[in-house]
């Protein structure tokens, strides 16, 4: 087994407003090893992005606050670090890429300047060397004519190129962990294919771990080794990619996989998960999926199930507990 890069234990991140408390992340456990890709899937509001921001301690406070748990990065608890220590971690040993690269690039500097600035900041190399390294990085992420591109401004690049630049910036300091929050959602399929291909290639070459956040079950199937399915701030299922797709256990995972139209299977009518996403500020003390679950029994609305090992998967569902038969 490879070395563990990141381990999260019972992470809780809440958002406070004058009226209510929104438990955006409410007890997440996960583990990422070196060279491994963990895919976090779920729908909007399930807490996947908040988990990511919590790792970097970038939750806007107020209104947000990490109220519990541990985030162990190579054995050190990130939640115990000072802000100055965190700055040394961010963009250095953990970096992040976002869905919309345009908003994370500064429009008034050339991409070459921004890249070499990031390299200088974290590695303390001379200006000239940083510039050369920036061009190397652009070449690594498959930007054609990198010398020329380095002199261009973000708005002169296409969406796919910008995302490549963002990735170049993110990996320029050889991070141990790359957090990718919906990196290809804003891109077209043919460009998405390019970017995913490049990310796979980079991961193999640099041996970093990746946490890939997405709502696209197809993208995780291609990219991830492990998958964590989130629903309403909680992990509902966690297993290897093969296990999840072959033998999904949680009714939500099953429903999710069945409800997407597929290129390889014909169905007359799509499977539907009835109902709507729950209101996070008003969650019952029970299974969060119970109101929409086709298999729900009385126990589901009374007590919340724990995340339990069932076969090769971790599942949060009463179906697989001894109490189910009573």
């Amino acid at each position, binding site marked *: 087994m490879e070395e563990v890069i990141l381990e999260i234990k019972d992470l809780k991140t809440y958002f406070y407003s004058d009226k209510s408390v929104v438990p955006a992340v409410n007890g997440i456990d996960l583990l990422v090893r070196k060279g491994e890709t963990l895919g976090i899937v779920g*729908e*909007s509001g399930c807490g996947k992005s908040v988990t990511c921001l919590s790792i970097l301690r970038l939750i806007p406070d107020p209104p947000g606050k990490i109220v519990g748990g541990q985030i162990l990065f190579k054995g050190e608890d990130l939640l115990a670090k000072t802000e100055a220590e965190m700055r040394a971690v961010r963009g250095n040993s953990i970096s992040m890429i976002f869905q919309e690269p345009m908003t994370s690039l500064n429009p008034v500097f050339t991409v070459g300047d921004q890249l070499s600035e990031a390299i200088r900041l974290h590695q303390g190399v001379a200006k000239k060397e940083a510039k050369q390294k920036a061009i190397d990085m652009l070449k690594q992420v498959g930007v*054609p004519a990198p010398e020329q591109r380095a002199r261009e401004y973000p708005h002169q690049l*296409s*969406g*796919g*190129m910008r995302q490549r630049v963002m990735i170049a910036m993110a990996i320029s300091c050889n991070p141990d962990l790359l957090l990718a929050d919906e990196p290809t959602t804003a891109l*077209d*399929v*043919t*460009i*998405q*294919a*390019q970017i*995913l*291909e490049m990310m796979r290639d980079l991961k193999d070459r640099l041996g970093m771990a990746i946490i890939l956040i997405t*709502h*696209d*079950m*197809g*993208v*995780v*199937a*291609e990219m991830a080794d492990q998958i964590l399915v989130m629903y309403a701030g909680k992990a509902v299922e966690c297993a290897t*990619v*093969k296990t999840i*797709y*072959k033998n999904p256990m949680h009714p939500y995972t099953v*429903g*999710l*996989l069945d*409800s*997407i*139209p*597929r*290129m*390889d299977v014909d*169905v007359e*009518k*799509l*499977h*539907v*998960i*009835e109902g*709507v*996403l729950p209101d996070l500020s008003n969650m019952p003390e029970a299974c969060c999926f119970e109101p929409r679950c086709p298999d729900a029994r009385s126990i589901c609305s009374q007590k919340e199930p724990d995340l339990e090992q069932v076969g090769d998967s971790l599942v949060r569902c009463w179906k697989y507990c001894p109490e189910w038969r009573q």
Partner: protein
Amino acid sequence: MEKLEMEPLVHTVGIKKYYPIKRGVLQKTIGHVKAVDGVDLYINKGEALGIVGESGCGKSTLGKVILQLQPQTEGKVFFEGQDLSQLGKEAMRETRKKIQVIYQDPYASLNPRMTVEQSIGDPIDVFKLARGEEKRQIIIQLLKDVGLSESHLKRYPHEFSGGQRQRIGIARALAVNPGLIVCDEPVSALDVSVRSQVLNLLQELKSRFNLTYLFISHDLSVVRHLCDRVAVMYLGKIIESAPTREFFVLPLHPYSKALLSAVPIPDPAISRDRIILSGDVPNPANPPEGCRFHTRCPYKTDLCVAQEPILRQAGNNHYVACHEF
């Protein structure tokens, strides 16, 4: 031009839509973005035609031209055999009743200051179809048709989730018994679990009311599920069109092949030979000479650079614009 087997509900001839690019103090036109650059298509009654393509290929603009929300630069749109550009203002307004639209963003496409009843009732008022209690009953029936209930009548859009709002948008489009509904990415903004609800609804309504859809989407799997026929656009042109089943089994154009192979399949057990296209979509203000796809095509020849291929029949109802055929 594509051959017509029967009188189609809609057909277009050589639709072009250019947007001028203006620069400088005097706002001089220095060029044109050729969003749609010569599109011929037809949609039969009761059919769902899927238009697929990547962002900037002109598929949404094409939809707006067919809706006559944007005037075309050139070409003609025929609806039930009638040239829409020949219609007077009043006649055009009457025709709008028959062509409705469903938008991508359910948060932006409803007036935030109108209740559900007012929103759905507005087209009924505009065309003076019903009043008072009769109108109310029609609205209630529409709400039921799209899976909402009478209790929602007096609520405002912000009280609904994305999927519910999309249902309201659909009810509004249905209110005037349209012949054609242009669906502009109707499920792209929705969450996965809600998406399938709305897709099923669209499918059910289509067969129940014998609706005709022009279904614009970048998501091939959605189009495959819902549409009878597919047309692929690239840089303002249709480069291939075929019945859905045939298209997804045997795409002919190299771009279609690449597009299909790029869609991730949610099954790690399936491994595919992926065609990864190099480079980006060229600027539609200045599309490449010859075949528009030649800058990214893995099979390009000298002919492709020199001459633009036309849409040719390559099978039953299957048309492709590529020199290889």
